[in-house]
Each structure stands twice: as C-alpha cells, then as structure tokens.
C-alpha cells in the first residue's frame, strides 16, 4: 500500500548511531552512506526505517531498501527527501511503501507513475512476478 506521509504524532526517527548505541527507539533514519546491514539484527523491533535521499541522483538508498526487505523487514520503509514522481515506481519495486517527498507530488502523476508498468523483467523486493516466470509458469 503506497501512501503519502504526514508525520504528525509519530515517533521521530533517530540516527543510526543513536539507534545502535543504546536507544529503545522503534524508528531509525538511514543516510546514503550508512550500511543497511547494521540494522539486520534489530529488524524485529523496528516499526519505521526512513531512508534519506538528499539528492535524487544518489541511488544508494535503492540498495539499502532491497537489503532490508531481503533480510525480512516487514515494517514501514519510507523514502524521504528529494523524492520525485519519476523515481517512485522504482522505489516501490525496491521495497519502499511510503514516501515523504520534500516537495509535494501531484497525486494524479503519482498514480499514473505507479500504474505505468504492466509487468517487470526482473525480480526485486515488491513481490512482483518477473516476466520470465510468467513466460514459463
């Protein structure tokens, strides 16, 4: 389920360092240069992982998201920052389920972008059945 986020009333996400050192926080924020695998031992107590996209051109967050989903993380995975309508379909495929763009997105464009692709060539973290599997059952 893809939703827009308004952050009223939710627990603020702490930095990776703060989370790892002591905190009992349930929300953490991951910067592009931070290793998503550091969170793997703690996934069961996390409700939100916010992955930062300071610049849309920096694609490290896509790998972070997939690594977290591949490790079994089922909580909220949020793309935050320079998140543009033309990136969100790929983000969703990598496992993001919520988006917190700095600049508000046109909701009609968002819907069109997410409905754009009929199928997908490759497996990713969204559970979509890749085309090769559709071909061969």
């Amino acid at each position, binding site marked *: 389920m893809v939703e827009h986020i308004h952050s009223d009333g939710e627990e603020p996400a702490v930095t990776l360092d703060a989370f790892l050192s002591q905190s009992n926080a349930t929300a953490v924020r991951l910067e592009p240069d931070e290793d998503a695998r550091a969170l793997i031992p703690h996934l069961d107590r996390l409700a939100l992982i916010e992955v930062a996209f300071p610049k*849309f051109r920096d694609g*490290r967050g896509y790998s972070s998201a997939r690594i977290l989903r591949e490790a079994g993380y089922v909580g909220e995975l949020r793309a935050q920052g320079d998140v*543009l309508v033309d990136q969100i379909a*790929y983000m969703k495929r990598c496992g993001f389920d919520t988006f917190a763009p700095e600049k508000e997105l046109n909701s009609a464009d968002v819907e069109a972008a997410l409905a754009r692709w009929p199928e997908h060539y*490759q497996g*990713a973290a969204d559970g979509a059945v890749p085309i090769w599997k559709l*071909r061969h059952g």
Partner: protein
Amino acid sequence: MYKYDEYDHAMVDARVAEFSDQVRRRLAGEITEDQFKPLRLMNGLYLQLHAYMLRVAVPYGTLDSRQMRMLAHIARKYDRDYGHFTTRQNIQYNWIKLEDAPAILQDLASVEMHAIQTSGNCIRNISSDQWAGAAADEITDPRPWAELLRQWSSFHPEFSYLPRKFKIAVIAANEDRAAMRLHDIGIQIVEKDGQHGAAFYVGGGMGRTPMIAPLIKDFVPLDDMLSYAEACLRVYNRYGRRDNIYKARIKILIHELGADEYRRQVEEEFKHVKSLGIDPPKAEFDRIAAQFAPPPLDAAAPDAIDRSDPDFAVWVDQNVAKHKVPGHAIVNISLKPVGGIPGDASSAQIDLMADLAEKYSQDELRVTHAQNIVLPHVRKADLYAVWQALDAAGLATPNLDLISDIIACPGLDYCSLANARSIPVAQKIATRFSDLGRQKELGELKLKISGCINACGHHHAGHIGILGVDRKGTENYQLSLGGSGAEDVSLGTITGPGFDEDGVVDAIERVTDKYLETRTEGERFVDTFRRVGMAPFKEAIYG
C-alpha cells in the same frame, strides 16, 4: 534474431507512454531541466551544442532490414537525412526536436526498437561481437546471453541511479572484436567440462583514467549469471564514489579496493543474492537461444569467388571475412570513405544496406564498434552483386582495419563536452593516406580519435590514438601509440608534446615511415611498437 513477445511489446509501449508524459510535463514547465535531464538521458536524449541528440539502441548491434529502414525513415523525417553509427553499436541523430522525441520513440517501438538506457547513469545497451553467429572462431553465439542481460538490466529498479554509466559487452570468441576488457563488465563465454559459462572481467574502461578489466571470476554458470551480475552491480552501487564524477566509474572502485577485495565482496553478496531466486530457468535461455538459431545456409553453396574484376578483388581481400559455413562470407561495409565523416550514413545508404540484407544476408545486419556495418551471412556467389550495389552507393571503400578506417567521436562539431574537433582531423588523415596501395603497405593499423578526455573515440585503444585537448583556447592534439582494444588489449602511451591539426597528421606520417623502416617481415605496426618501444618513434617525431 530476437523477436518481441507480448511482454516485450508491453514494456516498450509503457516506456514510450512514460516518456511522452515526461516530455509533456517538461514542456508545460511542471518539471525543471535538472529533474528532466536524467529522465531524458535514460531515453537516449542529450542536449548538445546545437540541438537535441537522440541515441537509439541497437541491442548487441543486431538489426533486421525492417529496423534498418526505420532508422532511415527517422533520419529522413526528423533529422537532416543522415544518422551516425557509434562505438557502442548504436545510432545517433544529431538534429532532433524535443517535441518530436515521443513520436520517434513510437515509430521505433513499431519495429521492436527503442532508446532505453542509451544514456544516463544506468546499465547501458549491451554490446557484442558484430560477427556473432557467423564468425568461424566463436564457441557459441553470444547474443542469447546478451539478450538475457538486456532484459534483466532494462528498467532495473535498483540500478537506475548508479554513481555513473555502466557498460557491458559479451563475446564468445578468443578474438575480441568488441573491446570486451575495456567495459565496466566484459563477459567472455567460455567452455568448461562441456558447459558454457561466463568469465567476468570487471572494472575496465576508457575515459580520463583508462583501465583494463581484471578477471574477477573465471566461470559463472549460466544459471548464476544474473545473480552474479546483480552482486557486481550492488557492490558498485553501494560503494562506488559519488563525490567526484571523474572517479565514479566502477574501474576506480576496483582500483582503490583492489581486484581481490572487490571479488571478496562480490562473492559474499552473490551468496546472498543467489538465494533470492532472480535467475531465470534454463527454459528462458532456451526460448531466447532458439530465436538466434543459425540461419538456413547451404553448406554446399559454391566456395569459389570470381575475382576477374580487380576492384572487386581488392575489396574482397580487405573487407570480406571468413564465415563458419562454407560457401558463405561476412561482408564488412566501411562507413569510412576518404574525406567522409566516420560512421555517418545517409538515409538512402541505410535503405540500400537494408535492401542488401534482405536480399543477400538472411535479413540481418550488424553495427560494429568501429562504426561500420556488417552483412553477416552472404553467399560467396552473391558477393559481386553486393559489391556492385555498395560501390554505386559509395559504400565499397576497401579499407577495413587500415589506417583510414578511423574511429572518431563527434567532437566539437556536435558535442557539448568536446574540447577539440575530431572529424576534420579524421578527414585530413584519411586524405593524407588516401592512396590505397600505401594503406595496404601499412597493413592493420587502428587509428582512433577522441575530441576530449572522455575518450568516446577509444583513443587509448588505438594502435595510434589521438586525443584533442584545449590548450589556452586552441585545439591541441596529443598522440599515443601502442593501444589495442582487441584480445591483445593494451593502453597507448603518449608520445610527448601535442600538435596542431596539421602537425598531428605530419607526426603520424613520420610514425608510419619509421614503422616501415623498422618492421620485420609480416609484423603489424602495433607489434613493431611493442618490440622496439617508444624511443625510435619519439626520435622520428620530434627529432
């Protein structure tokens, strides 16, 4: 040849719809040029010095006549009646209007073509051996492997915002006609215990820091190939440098980590990725491979060639190569007429080559990284008719792999990145050496020209390489010797101080004179250079 099924059609149609919408939003001012740039780049659209340039993908360089005719149609309808074949086996159009781009992509989609990922920081069009399926020395046709990679890399959600562009080449012969080890990933299909697998060379490239890719894995079984590629890319996406555009290619990461450490990280990632089930079953490879089944060639076709026309005989000797099936030959069409622009072809020439492919070459054409065209499956008995048609269209220059078969980037005549012009230098060199007897005397001599440090003209890999730089506002040309993009891959060495446009042509003449004086019987230029080193050539050039 690979034919789209309903899924392939749907994916390309979706991309055309997506890009049409993006162009609409850009023209309406809803997105900024900065936001639009990576989107148009991933659809092959560059903003150049004078106009938009559209780069159309020719996956692994293979085309049929219908597709080739569409390329002519686009040149005629939307451009200035010509196209430019590139070192990535693609075609570029230099005079495109942004508002026409969606219609062009729609026209391309109607013949199973596109401009997807021909630019941008993503996995680019996969290149391959232009003689695939025809070469006498290949162990198998590399194109089914390339097609598998094409589908995997198309719209890859994780690897569309990489640190930098990413180029993959696949070959399946020991003779390397695709500059395989000068790619981000070069794959050579090899045989082990009766099975074919992929040898992965990772971290090669040209640009300002040229590197030859080290061997990262000697044998990746077919069943693991996409997982292994995914692991290679994931390590790069996470750890490739993003602080400096000039250090962002994977070659820099591997150089800084060392090949062993990179391999260790890839192997670790591979163990994990392999568990995700992203590798298609053998049945998918077989489905693709069936579409590259060898064409029905008659091995009993006559093997003799009537060489009574001397001009034809010269062309046969230079431009026709051995085919794996007796009675057949590979025709190499040079797009390097003396004084012409390397890689350019007019709409009429493109149409003519399409006609010849349909009539004489099992409906197939190839684009080569040396910016020429190939008719891969021609009966020897038809060679004379093919040559006559080519000759009448100015396409029978018999100079394959000779000094005038020059690779040149578009340079400052078109490109917004260039520091110097490439085309006029190529034209002057070809004119200086226009005497064919002299060219043949010099033998195989691969000359490559780049108009800037980005090295699109492959100058590092030239037996003779030329790099155009801007020196205090004037164009200056550096000369290098001893590079190769073939199986004897090597990087050229700079001779010394650079030259002006005429000076570099003179210097090349001194180099070739020195070679003729120094070589032993049957020795190629590059082999002489390797034997005697730079000193005698330096002496000849600078005195």
